[in-house]
Every structure is written in structure tokens, then in C-alpha cells.
């Protein structure tokens, strides 16, 4: 998942903790292997290499694709799992390398869910296009692991995959989990959230941007234009019942750019937005 994944658990017995950790790790690896766009031979690789042919997908993949479609609709097409190819021209390395308009336009020919035919369970996509479930896969893995823990008896656990996390319930001897949210540098916390139970997800990465002529380009790309969303917050942290929901709200808010706070205020979820 491209980030450190951890499970903090309070189990009555060491053996129980080990078994829980084993199951959670196995589930995380399963999801990683199945949906990572960096791996060969999995369902994502098969879809991306189909060269226009129709692919039949399994139930779980279909569920994730359906969810992605919902986000696509809710975001006025700004959340788009085919937008990953924009990374070929946009590299957010802190430099001033802004791609040319023609370069962006060329890649944009391969972006857009509207070019894809999705009739569950059949997916057909023009050759050269790619999907990337990275925008929802990690949060999905966190929620799946939390569900496993509840199945196993529901010991107080914190599932934390690179900052997207779920607390199954408050720790035994404390009132809540203390979650520090990273600031500009990885070693300094920006704020501390007391999480009793529920999910917390953060979108945005204050260290990934481009800077040219005094203008900051955030790494949040708008797939309808091919350009970074103007005035996107540096980071948004959301509390929700599930990690998938928290991740979705924070991503949708990011894509709103300057209107992010207004959008978030209308939601019921607790949020912290950093400019």
C-alpha cells in the first residue's frame, strides 16, 4: 500500500494478539496483491492490459468499481479511477517542472470514465487507458481488517495503514486512542485527535507539490481538465464511521479546491482542514 501498515491491539493473551495480527496482515496482503497497480497478473493488471477487450471481474472488484462510479458521479466526474495516467506528465517532486499544455492534452485522451463501458460484471476500456484503485483500496483494506477484528471478538484495536485508520473501540484503560496527524514534516505532529472509536482518514500531502513563478500546484489533479485543482487545501482529515467513507469525503472535499471547507461544513463528519 506504499506506506507503513500497523495494528495496535489490546488482547488478553499473547497468542490471541498474534492470531489477530496474522489474520489482519493476511487480509492486507490479499488486498494489496489483488488490487495494486504495481503488481503483475492481478485483476487491475488484467484490466489495464486488456487492449480494448471485455474483462469479466469478480464480485469484490465489481463492488469496488461500483463504489468508484458512485464517487465519480458525486464528484461531478472529478474522482476518476482512470486519471492515474496523468502522473506520466505530472511529477510532484517539489520542483518547478510544469508540463506543457499539449503534453497534458495528449494524456487526457486516455482519461475519463465516460470512455469506459461498465456493465457489472463486464468492463471494457479503450486500449492505453488504465485504472488505479489506489484512491479507495487502502481505506477499503482498513475497514475489512476492522471487520475481521470485530468477527474475532472485538478487542480494542487500532488499524493504521499509512494514516488511514480505524479504532474498533476505546483502549481498555484509557478513554481514547491518541492519534497525531502529521504536519509539514513527518516528525512533527500538526494536531492530536482523541479517537474513541471510528475511522479517520487524511487526504493531501503537504510535501508533494510543484512551485513555479510563486504559484503552488497541489498534487490533487482534476481529471476533467488534466490540471491541479486550484486552491486545494494542503491536507484534510475526516472522522467518519468507516474509513472508506472518511477517505471518500476527504477526497471529494480536496477536489472542491477553494470550496472545500464549505463542502465539509455541510457534511456531518468532523473535519480538520489545513491550508
Amino acid at each position, binding site marked *: 500500500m506504499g506506506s507503513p501498515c500497523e495494528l495496535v491491539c489490546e488482547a488478553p493473551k499473547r497468542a490471541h494478539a498474534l492470531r489477530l495480527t496474522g489474520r489482519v496482515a493476511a487480509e492486507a496482503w490479499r488486498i494489496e496483491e489483488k488490487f495494486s497497480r504495481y503488481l503483475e497478473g492481478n485483476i487491475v493488471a488484467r484490466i489495464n492490459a486488456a487492449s480494448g477487450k471485455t474483462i469479466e471481474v469478480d464480485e469484490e472488484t465489481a463492488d469496488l468499481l*461500483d463504489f468508484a462510479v458512485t464517487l465519480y458521479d*458525486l464528484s461531478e466526474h472529478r474522482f476518476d479511477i482512470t486519471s492515474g495516467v496523468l502522473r506520466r506528465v505530472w511529477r510532484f517532486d517539489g520542483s518547478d517542472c510544469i508540463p506543457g499544455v499539449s503534453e497534458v492534452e495528449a494524456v487526457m485522451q486516455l482519461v475519463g470514465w465516460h470512455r469506459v463501458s461498465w456493465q457489472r460484471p463486464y468492463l471494457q476500456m479503450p486500449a492505453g487507458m488504465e485504472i488505479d484503485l489506489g484512491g479507495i483500496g487502502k481505506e*477499503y483494506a482498513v475497514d475489512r481488517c476492522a471487520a475481521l477484528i470485530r468477527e474475532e471478538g472485538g478487542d480494542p484495536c487500532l488499524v493504521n495503514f499509512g494514516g488511514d485508520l480505524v479504532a474498533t473501540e476505546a483502549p481498555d484503560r484509557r478513554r481514547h486512542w491518541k492519534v497525531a496527524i502529521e504536519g509539514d514534516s513527518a516528525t512533527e505532529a500538526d494536531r492530536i*485527535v482523541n479517537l474513541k472509536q471510528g475511522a479517520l482518514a487524511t487526504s493531501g500531502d503537504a510535501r508533494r507539490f510543484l512551485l513555479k513563478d510563486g504559484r503552488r500546484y497541489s498534487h490533487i489533479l482534476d481529471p476533467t481538465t488534466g490540471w491541479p485543482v486550484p486552491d486545494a487545501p494542503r491536507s484534510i482529515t475526516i472522522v467518519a464511521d468507516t474509513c472508506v467513507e472518511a477517505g*471518500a469525503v476527504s477526497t*471529494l472535499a480536496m477536489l472542491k479546491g477553494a470550496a472545500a471547507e464549505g463542502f465539509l461544513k455541510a457534511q456531518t463528519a468532523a473535519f480538520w482542514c489545513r491550508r
Partner: protein
Amino acid sequence: MSKQDNRSISAALATATCTLLGSGVVQPAVAQEEPDWDFNTSLLYYGEDGDRVKDFSVSAIARRMFVDDRFLTLSLTVDGLTGATPSGAIRQDVPQTFTRPSGNAAYTVPGGVLPLDDTFKDTRVAISGGWQQPIGETSLINVGASASKEYDYMHLGVNAKYARDFNQRNTTLSAGIALSMDSLDPVGGAPTPLTPMLDVGDTSNRLGDQDKDVLDVVFGVTQVISRNLVVQANYSYSMSDGYLTDPYKVLSLVDGTTGDTLLRTLTPGVEGPSHQYLFENRPDERTKHSLYGQAKYYMNGKVLDASYRYMTDDWDIDSHTVDLRYRIPFGTDSYIEPHLRFYTQTEAEFYQLSISDAQPLPSFASADYRLGDFDAITAGVKYGWRTRNDNEMSLRVEAYRQAGTVPGSQIIGNQASRDNYPDLNAVIVQFGYRF
């Protein structure tokens, strides 16, 4: 697609999430940002029985948390003290008249009654500040400063503590140091030690300001033994240097045979003491060594906290303290905590009930009951609960009883028939509110 209403987005997301994750039971999220400040306030009443000391104390501790476990702590305490305290003079069958510490007036105590000095009224204001900061992954440093002021006393102090975790954070070693520089400006001036209490208006035996310095050093180890047990041991050393005498305490100068306080010849028309009293004198150094052990044991929500302290000093006072607390949860939001404390000490080598005119004048002497041989017990209970908005309140009620004895060898003549050690009963009521 047309512009979505933000609320319908919420609903659509919730439905989509539910479809994706299935209908597992998910509890609603509960989270809030860690507040920057937290405040711990308390109101305390300490009342000794009869006309003796009463203390009303208000205190507030404010703690500001910064990221990365750095803390700023500020505290303010205001005490209002009233009441009377034993002067050190012994009971007589006849009334006794004393000059007030100010030297400006006199007061009379009826026969058979323990002489108390009722001029004891003061307001004390104390402030302190501290900063805590981790150093690297396993160390922690605390630095602080404190000051307090009352009418006749001023304290300034600085302190520092270093703690380091070892053994996967199961062992913590710590070392601390505190320095205190105090100055005293007793009402009417500090009396020259072992000189007589003089007539009203006569200040010929009064000295100027006094001061004392105190150095405290503590070394400690805390060890996690198991999931349920944490133990701690400390050694502390304390060295006081300077004016350690109580300027308001006296001793009765008594007849070596009868044990009665010697009468004094009064100058006509001048108010003054009816009997002969000498101001006390203590050594100007005191070195204490303490060993402290504590164990906290957790069992099914209940916590037993037991500690023992042994203290010995070069004034020959040895003391033992056993303190027991047992915290029992009541439901999820409240607890009850019975508390018992036992204390016993031996008397200081220069403690004496009175000074006999048949013996040479000692270099040091004090009849302060706090330096005598006594036992004390504190028994009480604390009830704590969490308020609806997640703040904590507590109410503590305790009774304190102190009873002492004067060694038979110090009792002269008629003193044997009198109650010589001023026993003490007190109640403590404290209300705490943390938010």
C-alpha cells in the same frame, strides 16, 4: 450530472459504503481534537478542631499540551489561614499572659488551658511553572520554577528532573534536583534564640530578616513488573541550611522541682508576660534521607496503590509512613477511593516540653509539638465522577488524628498531672474539578 446537494452526497456515500463493506455492525465514530489546555482546579478546606488552624485553599493548575509530548504547566494556589496554634508554652493552673509576636500587645490564656497563639492569620499566594519535554525517544526532561509569598515569608525555587526509559520502556530511571531560597521576615523581627519573651514595646532582643536554603536531590527507579503491577522506589536527600527555627515558638522556663512555670516580675504600668518564656532555638542545618517504595496493582478495574516511606534526619527524627488507596470503579463513569494513612515519628533530640531552671541552658531547644514523638492516622474517602460533558469532578473527605507523648524523663513535678502533648484532630474536605 447537475450540482449535488451536499446533504444528498452524505446520504449517497453512506449507502455506497454500506454496499461496499456489507452490513457489519459499525459503531458511530466518536472523536475530538485534543484540547490545548486542561485545567485542574480545587477548593480545599482544612480545619483543626477548636480554635486551631483553618485553611481555605483555592488552586488551579493549567496545562498546555504542545505536539510531541511537550507540556507547559502553570499553577496558582491561594491559601487563607486563620486560627490559633500552640505556642510551645505549657499549661498552668493559673492564667498566663504573653506578649504577641509583634511585640505590640499582650494576650491572656485562662488557667488549665493550652496556650495558643491566635495571631496566626495569613494569606499565602504560590505560583509555579514547569516545562516538560522529551529528549530523543527515551528521555524526558522537566524544568520548573516556583515562588510563594505570605506576610512574613517568601520562597523562590528552581527544579529540574531527568528521566530515561530502558528495557523497552519497562524501566525508568530518574534523577531530580531542587533548590529553594527562602527568606523570613517574622512579625516584630526574629527573636534572639533562647532569650526571654519581653514586655510589650521592648524589641531589644529582636533580630532582622532571616533566610534559609534547601537542596533536594532525588533518584528513582520505576519498574513495570507485569500488565497489572508497577513498582517504584526513590531515595531522596534533603539539606536545609540557615534559619530553621520557628520565630513564634517559645518554651516555658520551669522550676526544677515543681515543674511550674516561673513567675516574672512585672514593671508597674507596662504590659508583659506573666511568666518566664524563652524563644526556641534549632540547629541551623538539617539533613534528611528518605527511602520511598510504591506499588500500584491493577485488578479488574480496581487499583490498589500502596506506599511506604522511611525518613531519618540528623535531628534524630525517624519517621515511617504507610499510605493505602484503593480505587473501585462504579459503573463506567465514577469511582470511590478509600484512603488510609499511618504516620509515626520519634522526637527531635532537642525537643523538650519545658526548660528547667535546675539545668544549664541547652544550646538547642524546641517545644514545637510537630517535633515531638507522635502518631497520626488519616482516614477518608474520595468519590470521583465524570460529568456529562466529559469533565471530571471529585469530592474528598478525610479525618486526621494526631496523638503524641512526651517522654517521662522530661516531665517535672506537677507536669505529670497535666495533659502535655497537644493532640490534634482535623477534617479535610476537597472538591476538585478538571476540565
